């Protein structure tokens, strides 16, 4: 029996909604009781937060739709300027859609919040909505923070500014504390959509089992899937996608007749290594889903395909390679060791003084250090065996390495006189490059001495 109240008329609708949206009963109940009835006032602004794919948008949307409240749902990513945001809200309230007939122009032009409030009142009166609560839902509300500074506080107290019965619902992944402006604002009512537990996920994912297989069979599959992925990923969307693309592989033995549906252990042994490979390929988008499906159809071993990151090798000119190696060496080696590594007659060195001191962290942990151009060239000349003249070509190659984002310019103050650079390539990449020119780079790296 539902505990719902004054909205007797809506009781069956809510029940229907609960069937559609499982594991969100308390949230639906709270939200519904706060929204109240159409002609009641609702709280001026409600802030809903929760992780990705916890049903924030879906629940709000379905609830407003089933209760037949007048509402507008706007995504703040789409509306990146305040003007677009205002115009879209007005358009949707008016029921105006952009089409070739009206040359994709909006119903009303609106530039500032001030105009928006005036026009909003007009539209609401025109549509005869002033005796019921109008809901404005702003999805991905964290983007409001980067827009005009008056927008977020303005929407928070929109009911007061417009003097209309309106409620603004903000949906976000980020907590409210990160939104609050420095001078304060009207505090919204904060609701939390908790994450789904493992049992919830199991229940939700088991619902879309394909026809032709028993529900239990699919539930076993989901159980195995969650066992592999649950520690890494709790995103329902991602899990659903992974479940969909790996299912053909799972039911393959059954279709071939090697195993029965009840043969759980065998099926598990078949699918588990496959799923583990998925973490490194499809989950990271190294291999696209369509490629993965094709691989499965052809019966090839997953992971044979080279991923996106395997194609990182770049063919460079000879001097560019050496320049890049020199840049890497000067980024990751401290300057005081240059003499030891690169000058031929470095005189007598006390062995003890050069022994690697116990440093807390190695350079490969701290990241690349900036170096001046002179040091790069000095190391370059010492590692290239032949004589190189410092022609314009060499310098333009440095500039083009910057353009390729293999090295970056640090500090934009000086372009010509003594610029500083940083090397941004990884160790794997640079060792591959060094191998092509027969240069043993590890011997010259301070960290690996």
């Amino acid at each position, binding site marked *: 029996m539902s505990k719902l109240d004054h909205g007797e008329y809506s009781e069956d609708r809510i029940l229907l909604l609960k069937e559609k949206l499982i594991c969100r009963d308390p949230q639906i109940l709270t939200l519904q009781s706060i929204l109240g009835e159409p002609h*009641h006032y*609702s709280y001026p602004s409600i802030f809903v937060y929760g992780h990705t794919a916890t049903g924030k948008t879906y629940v709000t949307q379905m609830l407003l739709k089933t209760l037949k409240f007048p509402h507008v749902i706007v995504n703040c990513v789409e509306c990146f300027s305040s003007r677009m945001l205002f115009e879209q809200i007005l358009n949707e309230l008016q029921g105006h859609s952009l089409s070739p007939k009206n040359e994709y122009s909006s119903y009303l032009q609106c530039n500032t919040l001030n105009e928006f409030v005036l026009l909003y009142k007009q539209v609401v009166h025109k549509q005869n909505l002033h005796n019921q609560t109008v809901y404005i839902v702003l999805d991905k509300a964290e983007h409001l923070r980067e827009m*005009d500074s008056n927008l977020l506080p303005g929407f928070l107290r929109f009911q007061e500014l417009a003097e209309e019965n309106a409620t603004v619902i903000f949906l976000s992944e980020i907590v409210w504390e990160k939104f609050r402006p420095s001078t304060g604002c009207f*505090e919204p009512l904060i609701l939390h959509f908790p*994450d789904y537990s*493992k049992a919830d996920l199991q229940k939700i994912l088991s619902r879309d089992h394909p026809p032709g297989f028993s529900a239990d069979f699919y539930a076993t599959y989901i159980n195995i899937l969650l066992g592999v992925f649950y520690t*890494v*990923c709790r995103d329902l969307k991602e899990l659903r996608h992974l479940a969909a693309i790996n299912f053909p592989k799972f039911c393959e033995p059954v279709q071939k007749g090697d195993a029965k549906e009840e043969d759980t252990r065998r099926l598990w042994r078949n699918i588990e290594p496959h799923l583990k490979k998925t973490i490194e390929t499809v989950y990271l988008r190294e291999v696209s889903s369509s490629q993965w499906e094709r691989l499965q159809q052809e019966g090839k071993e997953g992971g044979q395909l080279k991923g996106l990151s395997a194609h990182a090798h770049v063919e460079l000119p000879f001097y560019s390679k050496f320049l890049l190696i020199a840049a890497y060496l000067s980024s990751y080696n401290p300057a005081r060791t240059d003499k030891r590594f690169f000058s031929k007659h470095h005189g007598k060195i006390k062995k003890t003084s050069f022994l690697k001191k116990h440093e807390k962290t190695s350079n490969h942990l*701290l990241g690349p250090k900036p170096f001046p151009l002179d040091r790069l060239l000095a190391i370059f000349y010492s590692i290239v065996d032949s004589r190189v003249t410092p022609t314009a070509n060499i310098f333009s190659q440095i500039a083009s390495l910057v353009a390729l984002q293999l090295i970056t310019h640090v500090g934009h103050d000086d372009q010509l006189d003594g610029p500083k650079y940083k090397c*941004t390539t990884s160790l794997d990449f640079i060792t591959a490059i060094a191998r092509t020119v027969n240069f043993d780079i590890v011997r010259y790296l301070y960290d690996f001495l």
Partner: protein
Amino acid sequence: MSKRKCKSNSLSLGECIAKAHMILRARFCHHLPGKPFGLEAQYKNLMDLLKQTAVQGESNSVLIVGPRGVGKTMLLKSVLNELMEMKYVKENLLQVHLNGLLQTDDKVALKEITRQLQLENVVGDKVFGSFAENLAFLLEALKKGNRSNSRPVLFVLDEFDLFAHHKNQTLLYNLLDVAQSAQTPVAVVGLTCRLDVLELLEKRVKSRFSHRQIHLLNAFGFKQYVEMFQQQLILPKEFPDGRFAQEWNQNIQCLCKDKMVEDILQKHFNSSKDFRSLHMLLMLTLSHVTVSNPNIRPTDLLAASRQYMMDSKANVLHGLSVLELCLIIAMKHLNSIYEGEPFNFEMVYNEFQNFIQRTTHSMHNFKKPVVLKAFEHLQQLELIKPMDGASLRTHKEYQLVKLLLDSSQIMDALQKYPQCPTDVQLWAASSLD
């Protein structure tokens, strides 16, 4: 069976509850201009001042200063309501309401003033003319008048501190200048929550301001807070169903004497004294009132208070995956080793690897890109913050970040985490120093 029976004889109950909801919701959400609580002196002060302008034709300027949710707008509204009951004032006084959030620059504000005063260059809701024309026109219109035969104008500037950020403070200067010289009688009322608002004004603007300030502070004790709580929940005498209202009010009175309710209210009183947080609490409580539960019980208030006091960061931490939690613990360790110095992904990964090598089973043995993805998710949730914005120019792995969580928060979250692996828990508890 029982459900149907209950429904048939509670038809009027349902209506009563709907009605109660309507009245109370309007009170909590819409902030009707009620009688201000404990602000009699300020009320009288403002009333006298505005009456001087409306009746005698004196020009005045005043600032109402107080923290958010203290009742500045309510005070002004209730004064204006009383003032408007006088017939002479109602016919005579013109009102212009401006808000710093809406009128973000002087141009918009000027158009709004012209529109609200319905001057000659207004057609419908549109105002014509450039900024200079509008300003000249408005000033001329204001200057032409004099004390005896022109209607006084009341300017209400909500979020006054935002008007002080306009270029050259032209609007403020002109309004206060008119208020000082013998022209049309105007009253400028500013509402702000900043105590240092006068420091924002330019010297010439400041010298024209009368320096009259009305401070609203929440100067009441816990006893009055409970009284206020009671007052806010009580149904008015005009309620259609007398019996229901009586029962409801009796219940509210009982509620105020309850020990648990008192404890909850004390907790809220200690954290904040403003009306709005109380309203929010009441709104959450009210949403528990249904046909099957027609009265407010102390447990409803407790549930509402729990919902209100929820720690949002703990909620976010609760939803993380085990891998992300491990990274947070690694960052916590780095924080304690390097005393709050920023760190990068490589260092976190290194710390995480150390942990994995120590544990016997390879359950958490993930490849580096998978860990990086988890790290990026933490950044997306703003649990870690990059130190400098130059994200394009440095490698993702070497970007310096800072953890925005306290170690006690992390430990609390670990306690509540569902099915937290024991080795992770032990690792979190072990500090290296």
